[in-house]
């Protein structure tokens, strides 16, 4: 087979794969079986399509083939597994009526996709397992790609995925979209997984690890898909807004020598205007959803609002610090934390001057949660430097440098100490 042909069929399959797995899993009640059947149908396509040409409705063809494979397996092995039986019954019913490829693919494929997302992020699985399974089933990343992105050995990821599928089967996790009171907690788990994937990619500023960028893009894509599937949920739009806005600064946050560039020092001409526009639009949608449900803005929306304050300022000096301090206040009410307080202090310092900021930071000095947090001395150093108290500032930066484990952060702190 020509390489181009193989590439084209693979690309088609990667488009159809999540939908295939999602629908097959509903019938088989097992995501592992669904994934295998999808793979079988892909291999059949690789064999058939170069001879017969690509069918008009490739997705429906793949689905029908997967179901036939299930029936074959059932007949051949006389499998007791009810999963295959269920698929076979489904197919026999279809064969009893005139074959119509349109009916093979469900209209409410969206519901199946949602089921698959909720299942992959099920709380019965560990956080690590949820991430790996989501990337494998919905992102279509290979275990090797996932392993490279997370810088762990491939067998570790492969094992994690196998175990996760086994756990789902053993615990007989229902393949469904949670509703009622369960929904908000389960949705929060899904959003957490997506944001975790995003941050895993975003946090790495060093080197040219393209798989890391791929994680950001995959999280964005999953978020965009979810925003379409769960339009009424404010936090879904809040999360996608947050990710789009953070992503808009991706290129600007690393300097010539790979060193991190702080937000206030970034070249705003390098911020991606399209992503900013999309992020701001998602914030609008989140607010509309809040109004509709009579809900207060959640944590993702508030964080997106923070990012938006920076995105809207064409120059660093134009930043609306009063609004930022207010948002940190709201975040602190939602989930009280000294780290949020520290950030609020920085915002107030920008608004009212370094002396006011320093007083708030000093009040935080004995917070146990901030004891080993390098940004506390870093912020103190910054405020002291602005007040011209350079000797004290240097000591704070040196303390911050000694506290961080990250080499690049340490370099930034030491550089400031030398100033």
């Amino acid at each position, binding site marked *: 087979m020509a390489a181009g042909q193989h*590439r*084209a069929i*693979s*690309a*088609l399959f*990667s*488009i159809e794969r999540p939908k295939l797995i999602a629908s097959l899993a509903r019938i088989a009640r097992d995501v592992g079986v669904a994934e295998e059947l999808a793979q079988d149908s892909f291999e059949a396509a690789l064999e058939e399509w170069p001879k017969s040409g690509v069918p008009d409705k490739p997705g429906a063809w793949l689905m029908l083939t997967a179901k036939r494979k299930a029936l074959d397996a059932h007949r051949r092995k006389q499998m007791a597994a009810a999963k295959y039986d269920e698929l076979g019954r489904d197919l026999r019913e279809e064969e009893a009526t005139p074959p119509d490829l349109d009916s093979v693919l469900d209209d409410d494929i*969206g519901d199946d996709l949602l089921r698959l997302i909720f299942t992959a992020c099920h709380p019965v699985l560990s956080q690590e397992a949820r991430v790996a399974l989501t990337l494998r089933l919905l992102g279509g990343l290979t275990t090797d790609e996932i392993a490279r992105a997370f810088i762990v050995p491939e067998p570790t990821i492969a094992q994690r995925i196998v175990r996760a599928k086994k756990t789902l089967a053993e615990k007989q996790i229902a393949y469904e979209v949670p509703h009622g009171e369960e929904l908000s907690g389960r949705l929060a788990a899904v959003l957490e997984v997506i944001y975790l994937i995003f941050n895993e990619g975003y946090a790495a500023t060093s080197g040219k690890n393209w798989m890391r960028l791929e994680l950001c*893009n995959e999280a*964005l*894509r*999953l*978020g*965009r*898909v979810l925003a*379409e*599937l769960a339009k009424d949920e404010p936090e879904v739009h809040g999360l996608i807004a947050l990710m789009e806005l953070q992503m808009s600064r*991706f*290129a*600007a946050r690393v*300097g*010539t020598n790979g060193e991190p560039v702080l937000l206030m020092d970034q*070249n*705003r*001409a*390098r911020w*991606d205007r*399209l992503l900013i526009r*999309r992020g701001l639009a998602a914030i609008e949608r989140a607010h509309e959803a809040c109004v509709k449900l009579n809900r207060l803005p959640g944590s993702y929306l508030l964080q997106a609002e923070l990012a938006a304050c920076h995105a809207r300022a064409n*120059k660093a*000096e134009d930043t609306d610090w009063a609004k930022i301090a207010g948002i940190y206040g709201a975040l602190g009410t939602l989930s009280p934390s000294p780290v949020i307080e520290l950030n609020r202090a920085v915002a107030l310092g920008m608004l009212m001057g370094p002396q006011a900021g320093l007083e708030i930071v000093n009040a935080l000095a004995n917070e146990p949660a901030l004891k080993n947090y390098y940004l506390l001395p870093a912020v103190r150093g910054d405020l002291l430097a602005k007040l011209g108290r350079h000797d004290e500032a240097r000591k704070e930066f040196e303390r911050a440098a000694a506290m961080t484990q990250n080499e690049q952060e340490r370099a930034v702190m030491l550089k400031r100490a030398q100033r």
Partner: protein
Amino acid sequence: MRFMVIVKATKDSEAGVMPSEELLVAMGKFNEELVKAGVMLDGMGLQPSAKGARIKFDGDKRTVVDGPFAETKELVAGFWLIQVKSLAEAIEWMKRCPNPHNDGGELEIRQVYELEDFAPGEGIRIHEKVRDELKKQK
């Protein structure tokens, strides 16, 4: 990676013939599919070149030429901005697009340079200098 999918102009699009209801519906469905898959980032249709202009550069000289422009098939009538994993995926998605014009359409798929493709150099430094100047003016 991001791709710009360019819709080439035709005699109809240049004449300002609006798409049929049928095409509008089909195109709407296609766009919906792209959005649902998290693929479509942006998209726009352009008015006929008769309503546009060109600026031609010759050394330091600039000459403005008003539309319409003759080479219809080379003109742009609209575009999508999509994000996918490969050119092959972009092709497979756009093959599903309804024929954008009744009189023989053409799509051109081009990969977008991302900012991180450019090594920070003189150009970026100039942007930074401008920003510093603006700071001083304040």
